[in-house]
């Protein structure tokens, strides 16, 4: 937690990152607010999805959008400093957060498994698609928690890189030269 706070202090001491954070937050918040209610609309995303927003969806949207926006700012900062950023956990967290409500209860998975079954007739009549969908539907909260944990991990990993600063690797040749 200290690393994240320290990294925030470093990054937000520069005004431009506050603006990037705000814009990123608004973009991610919009995406989450549209995507999360799709678990109630059969995967359909439109302006009418907003009518299905409930307290839980709004809270999750705000939390995940805030984390995603901070990660985005940290990654941009690291990139500008010429350092590499950790993107794998962030990508995982974003994908799981967006995909979970889209796949739960929508026709997407049954259609996809139907196509697979047309290639592998042995799967015909199996409940493979609905079983995967049932798993997503009954473990939705756990999947969101996992997505949030991945986002927090990504935030921490990138915060650590920011607080460690720019690392210059001394080659053995340079060290030998220093000795001479």
């Amino acid at each position: 937690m200290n690393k994240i706070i320290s990294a925030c202090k470093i990054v937000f001491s520069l005004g431009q990152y506050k603006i990037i954070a705000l814009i990123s937050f608004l973009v991610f918040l919009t995406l989450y607010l549209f995507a999360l209610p799709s678990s109630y609309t059969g995967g359909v995303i439109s302006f009418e999805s907003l009518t299905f927003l409930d307290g839980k969806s709004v809270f999750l949207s705000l939390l995940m959008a805030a984390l995603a926006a901070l990660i985005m700012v940290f990654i941009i900062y690291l990139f500008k400093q010429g350092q590499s950023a950790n993107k794998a956990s962030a990508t995982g967290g974003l994908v799981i957060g967006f995909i979970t409500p889209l796949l739960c209860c929508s026709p997407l998975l049954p259609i996809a498994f139907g196509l697979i079954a047309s290639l592998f007739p042995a799967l015909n009549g199996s409940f493979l698609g609905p079983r995967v969908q049932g798993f997503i539907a009954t473990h939705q909260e756990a999947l969101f928690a996992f997505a949030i944990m991945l986002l927090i991990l990504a935030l921490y990993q990138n915060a650590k890189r920011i607080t460690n600063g720019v690392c210059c690797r001394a080659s053995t040749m340079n060290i030998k030269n220093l000795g001479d």
Partner: protein
Amino acid sequence: MLLCMTSPGLAAWDLNLSEKALPYPAPEGLFVSQGKVLPIEKYRGHKVMLWLFSTWCHTCVVAAKSLEKNNAGLQKNGLTILALRNYKNGGNSGLSIEQFIEKFVPSMTQAENWVLGEASAQLDNAYNARHYADVYFLIDEQGMVQVVSTSPAATLSTIKKFIKGP
């Protein structure tokens, strides 16, 4: 996703899940209601909404609540709702149809236009071979399937349009 968000008029809400050209004659199908095996054809001559759903699906809970809220208007316009749990609950464990209705829309146990039951394997095969978690069929008085869609809460306008007729 962006296309959907920027196109409020997009017909996504009228998502057509029919694999045949509409309208088509409603296939025969059996279901179990209160221990009795009943055929779908029993409801020929009525406007029927055959709703096949799984009790673990979130869309279905919201749909049941939406149908309950609008049931007075649906009943007034002569719609019979056959609310059937998918065969084997779509391959997952979960509440029985009675438990589901009792938990989420208890007033519908008394609704005259609601018939609760469980789809047979034959009905599942005839209507929902893809095993959608939430799918409904709007069948007119002549026994013709006019609409195949999903998520009744999100597509309520389609159901209302159907019961009001052309």
